[in-house]
Structures are given as structure tokens and as C-alpha cells.
């Protein structure tokens, strides 16, 4: 059975942070109409739908928000955002929830999507551009190497067409870019 934990202090702090993103304060105007959940192409696979996540977040039931897979199944399609009658930028809220969960170590460690986000980020910070092959290989090796086999057919097709980008492209201004990203929150560590 699910244990409902309410952590008021942390819950309030996280809610404040969600409300600090552009238009994030509109989360207060959610009437639980469910337009987000009905629009979401991923909601059928979520333990808690977007509507339930908003309710849980506002009630401080943080385990529903952070221990479920919900926010990691968001495909960033923005359909909830454009349809929400209260104007809540819910896609951005999802990004913020992902960020807060990673920062505070609130997620289950087996979320593959976190590994994807981290691997992508590290690759971009290493070269200034994405290196698709290196990124995808690292992702599968740190999650489930066997799943790589499922990709061989497409990978071979792309290879035959010369469409696999085997060599990373490093930008010239990488040193300056590193100074820039280090200057904002998060310092200089990779994730």
C-alpha cells in the first residue's frame, strides 16, 4: 500500500520554486478540470496523471510527485500547456519538477530518463554540441546494454547511409562557453 507522506516545509519550498518560474504562480488557479491529463499523450502510462501531480504538489504529498514515473514520461509536447484554461505552463512545471528532484535526490535511482538527461547534458558540455552516437552509447551502457540490440537494425541502416555521426564536433568557443555556464546556478560540475 502506498504511504502518503506530507512534508510541509519541503513541500512549501518546492511549491514556491515552481511558482517562481515564468507564469508558475498560475498553479494556484488550477481547478482540477483535468484538461491536462486528457490531452497528455503519455498519461495512460503514468501512475499519477498531470492533474493529480498538481494536486499532490499543492498538498505537499511529495512522494507521489517524485517517486512516481510521471514527470519523466512527459514528452514535452506542450499540449497541456496550450489547453490549460488557467494558463499553467505545465510543461515548464514538469521541467522544474525534474530539476528539483534531481537536485534534492528525491527520485528513484532507476529512472532511465534521468540518465538520458544527464548523459545528454554532459555530452553537450564536453563539446558544445551534441555527439549523438557517443551520447546514445553511453546512455545504453549505463542503463541496459541489452536494449542496444533493439537499436541495431536502425543503427545499421543509418550506418549504411553514412548517417551515423561517429566523430564529435567541438566548438571553437568551448572554453568561453564553459565559463558562461559555470557562471549560473549549479557551478561547473556536470550534473
Amino acid at each position, binding site marked *: 500500500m502506498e504511504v502518503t507522506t506530507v512534508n510541509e516545509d519541503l513541500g512549501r519550498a518546492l511549491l514556491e520554486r515552481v511558482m517562481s518560474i515564468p507564469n508558475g504562480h498560475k498553479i494556484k488557479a488550477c481547478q482540477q478540470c483535468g484538461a491536462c491529463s486528457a490531452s497528455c499523450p503519455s498519461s495512460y502510462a503514468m501512475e499519477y496523471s498531470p492533474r493529480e501531480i498538481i494536486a499532490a504538489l499543492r498538498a505537499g504529498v511529495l512522494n507521489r510527485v517524485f517517486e512516481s514515473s510521471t514527470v519523466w514520461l512527459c514528452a514535452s509536447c506542450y499540449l497541456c500547456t496550450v489547453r490549460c484554461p488557467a494558463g499553467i505552463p505545465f510543461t515548464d512545471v514538469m521541467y522544474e519538477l525534474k530539476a528539483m528532484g534531481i537536485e534534492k535526490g528525491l527520485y528513484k535511482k532507476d529512472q532511465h530518463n534521468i540518465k538520458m538527461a544527464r548523459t545528454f547534458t554532459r555530452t553537450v558540455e564536453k563539446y558544445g554540441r551534441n555527439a549523438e552516437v557517443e551520447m546514445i552509447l553511453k546512455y545504453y551502457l549505463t542503463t541496459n546494454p541489452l536494449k542496444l540490440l533493439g537499436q541495431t537494425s536502425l543503427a545499421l541502416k543509418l550506418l549504411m547511409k553514412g548517417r551515423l*555521426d561517429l566523430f564529435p564536433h567541438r566548438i571553437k*568557443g568551448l572554453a568561453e562557453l564553459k*565559463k*558562461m555556464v559555470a557562471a549560473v546556478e*549549479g557551478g561547473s560540475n556536470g550534473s
Partner: protein
Amino acid sequence: MEAERKYSYYPGCSLMVTNRSYDISTRNVAAVLGIEMAEIEDWNCCGATAYYPVREKRSYVLSARNLSIAERNSTDLITVCSGCYAVLKKTDKYLSEDEELREEIRAALREGGMDYEGKVKVRHFLEVLTKDLGEEAVRRHVVNSLDGMKVAPYYGCLFGRPFGGRDEFEFPEAMDDLIRWLGGEPAPFPLKSKCCGGMLMTTQPDMALNMTGKILRNAKSCGAVCIATCCPLCQINLEGYQGKVSKRMGSDCSIPVVYFTQLMGYAFGLDAEQLALKDCLTDVDSVFAQRGSKR
């Protein structure tokens, strides 16, 4: 002679090799139309949708650096990748609306010797074609009319959401118009802006295969002979997994998938090499080669 139209151009990472056919066909189509697109120098990754969750503000820095480089040209910035388009546009919008954020990001840019004053307008190539050029400018270059060709215009999410006009959130019309101007017939396509799954194809393939399956099946049932796309991630999701998808859906979901720029280039009489048709993973010969070309 066409009036010279000048823009900056941001190709984005996925157009360097994997989806270079989009880059190549875009540049060649632009040349026909007299659009000058200057690739911005030493651009970096836009951060895509995978970057926000890890470090939101860093993602703004990444995009702001690109906007800063584009600002040197004092022209609108064109991108053809809907992902890059939405991310760059979002950064520009949030920086213009939120002073605290703007000052923090500008201070970060200055650490690396750059700055951004907020003067760049981010545009999707498809929007530029339909709004800045318009019907006559496109029609006059058509040598191979797409007469009788029914095309399913697939926009995906990020062309129209969240930064298109209200009419574009769910049922954009730009590519429909373009297909008509090229002589073809846009298929009535209810799933035209339904999500293809995006990066879920890697992290949650079961979900994404269902999502692409519905789109492919819908396009076929609309009677389209091909799907036209305007985003490299949509393109690879729709063209790369048709075998798996067909098995899962229990019906044949194979259908040719091309970039709208390849379709346009064919109509303009460009050859297979100028459109990089050999890169396609689906049977595009049935769309183009079998019709022949007048040039």
C-alpha cells in the same frame, strides 16, 4: 529577379550528419527562392528538451549564446528543427519578460565575452516561407507540379506549440498551404500535430512506438502517398521504426516520409542529390522517381 532576402541560419546538431538531408534540401530550396541564409558562426547545441531538467538556467545560457551570435547579423534567425526553434524562442521570450533572469543570463554571457540585447527574432523556415514569401513567390518556381499527389502534412508538436499563433496550437495550416502551392493536395490529417514521442523513443520505446504507430496509420487511412515533416526528430521517429511499428499495430504502417523541403525541392526541379534523397529510410522512389522530373 527576386528581392534579396537575408536571414541568419541555425542548423542545429542533428542536421550536421544524421539529418543532413534536411540541411541540404533547405539550403538548396532557399537558393532557388533567393533567400540568403548565413549560418551563424560557431553555434552550440540549443540544449534541446533534455537540458532543462538538469540545469534550467544553463539551458538559457546555451540558447542565449546562439542568440548573441545571431544578433551580430541584425536579421531574423531561421531554424528548420522544430526543437531548436521552440527552445531558442522560449529563451528569447523568457529573457525579454523576466528582468532578473535576463540580467543573470547576460552576466553569464559576459563571462565569456558575449552579450545579448534581445533583438533577434527566431523563425521557423516553414513560417518564413508562408508568411514572408507567400504563394506567388513559391508558385512561380514550380516545374514539377505535385498534381494529384496527396500528402499528409505532419507538424508534430513544437512547430505550433507553444509559440505558434492560437490557430497553430493544434491544427497548423502552413504546410497544407505550401503543398497546395506546389500543386499537391494536403490530406485531411487529424493527427497532424499529435506527439510522435520525441526522445521517449529511446527511453520509453513501448510508449513511443504506439505514438508513431497511430500517426503512421492515420496518415495511411487519409489516403496520403507520403508524410511530409518539418522536424528532424519527428522524421527519424516516423521513418526509422516502421517495421517494428507495423508488427506492434498488427497492420502495415509503412509509408514514405520526407522533409517538406525535399517535397518542395522536387517541385522546383532539383535533382535527387540536391535533396539528399539517398538518405531516406523509406521508399521515396515511389513518391518522386516514378513521377519523373521535367528538369
